[in-house]
């Protein structure tokens, strides 16, 4: 088992597998965010997004009470993120070690900027994730009347500030780029690529990165443009 992790290929497979988990999370998160557009539930008197948040906190409560399932998911995600990160740092070290002297002149034929900036992009995303958790999960850095459980209003008050919207948009661009190469790389590393499937897989990766990027960006843009507001209607 540890022999597997020792090789570069084994490490890559670990990065790809944890990448799959993180990708699925991001996809689900994005889909959940779109609940912001579903507005207000007149029957319950709450925003649909808030109900969704409630659902996440209480899922599995019949068996294990509130928050347990959510924490299980959180722990799994955190472990995946840590593994993803640690492995990448090790690989990054091996990469740099493999070419101690670089070229005086270098041309790229197909290594996209997205691919070449994976490590830097990943680090920026890590910073963003920490900020994002403090901003909209714990509210520590919200500063505009953060209210536990009132997800929708927290979001709207947060994104009424253009600087924060801009920051989020940049982060989403970075995420999108990370996924553009990451998802394709995941297919390749897990051995799913074949000459027949290559085009399809690359298209899926590109589509996923665009859809997720736009999906996430839609909420701050909608708030900033006034399309989403604290109206109940």
């Amino acid at each position, binding site marked *: *088992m540890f*022999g*597997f992790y*020792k*090789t*570069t*290929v*084994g*490490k*890559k*497979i670990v990065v790809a597998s944890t990448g799959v988990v993180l990708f699925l999370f991001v996809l689900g998160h994005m889909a959940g965010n779109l609940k912001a557009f579903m507005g207000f539930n007149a029957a319950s008197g709450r925003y649909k997004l808030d109900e969704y948040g409630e659902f996440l906190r209480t899922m599995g409560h019949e068996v294990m009470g509130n928050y347990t399932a959510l924490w299980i998911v959180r722990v799994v995600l955190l472990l995946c993120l840590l593994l993803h990160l640690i492995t990448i740092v090790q*690989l990054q070290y*091996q*990469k740099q*070690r*493999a*070419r*101690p*002297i*670089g*070229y*005086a*002149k*270098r*041309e*790229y*034929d*197909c*290594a996209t900027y997205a*691919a*070449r900036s*994976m490590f830097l992009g990943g680090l920026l995303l890590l910073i963003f994730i920490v900020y994002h958790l403090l901003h909209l999960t714990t509210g520590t850095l919200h500063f505009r009347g953060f209210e536990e459980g009132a997800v929708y209003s927290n979001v709207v008050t947060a994104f009424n500030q253009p600087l924060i919207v801009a920051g989020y948009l940049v982060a989403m661009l970075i995420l999108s780029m990370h996924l553009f*190469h990451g998802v*394709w*790389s995941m*297919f*390749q*590393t*897990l*051995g*799913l*690529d*074949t*000459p027949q499937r*290559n085009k399809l897989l690359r298209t899926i990766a590109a589509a996923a990165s665009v859809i997720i990027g736009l999906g996430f960006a839609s909420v701050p843009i909608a708030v900033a443009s006034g399309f989403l507001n604290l109206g109940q209607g």
Partner: protein
Amino acid sequence: MKIKLHIWRQKNSSDKGGFVRYEMNDVSPDMSFLEMIDVLNEQLEAKGEEPVGFEHDCREGICGACSMVINGRAHGPQALTTACQLHMRKFKDGEDIWVEPWRARAFPVVKDLIVDRGAFDRIIQAGGYISVRSGSAPEANSILVPKPAADSAMDAASCIGCGACVAACPNGSAMLFTAAKVSHLALLPQGQPERMLRVQKMIEAMDREMFGPCTNYGECQEACPKGISISFISMLNRDYLKSSLVQIKKGAEKVQAQ
């Protein structure tokens, strides 16, 4: 044609090395890139200066000896072409041309543009073969190979071991080389008995040589003079994953048996 060359000169592996500029005033567009360096070398030799060291042998694009990064690209600007088959008509009159050795920790510079690619041989020695004793082979047609498998194996087997993939990879990874070698044998029925062990041994050998990890840029595929596809890397990954699972399962069985 006139060209301005900037060639990496390094006396030996312990020398620091640096670029030296040479101006060539009478280059024929019909010369190959190596012939152009030949001409430069004859000029240097006539002056009693040491010629530029570079690997070359067959000069028809198959032995894989020639190895230089020309203007930032392994084997130069023409696709599917080794440096020995690259001709000066692909360059502009008056152009500045930068010539550097393959750069990788696993390929230390021996002299000027010559690097030591023994690491590739050691990867093959670790398992890049089918164990068959001389004289013990069965009748050739008793092993039938479906044409698509044979063709695909041939695609992988066309690797000339030049190392352009390593040179072009931003990570200095040898995955395309290793993948081509592993896949060639993995695609054929003859290669099945040792398939799982082979991929493990060859990847371990590749790592021992301190090649970098693959991050799926695809630069290797673009630089490969034989156009070997990175789909073979995917196949290698698949085989490695499979072989690791087999190993874990076998390990578990062993524990049970005890």
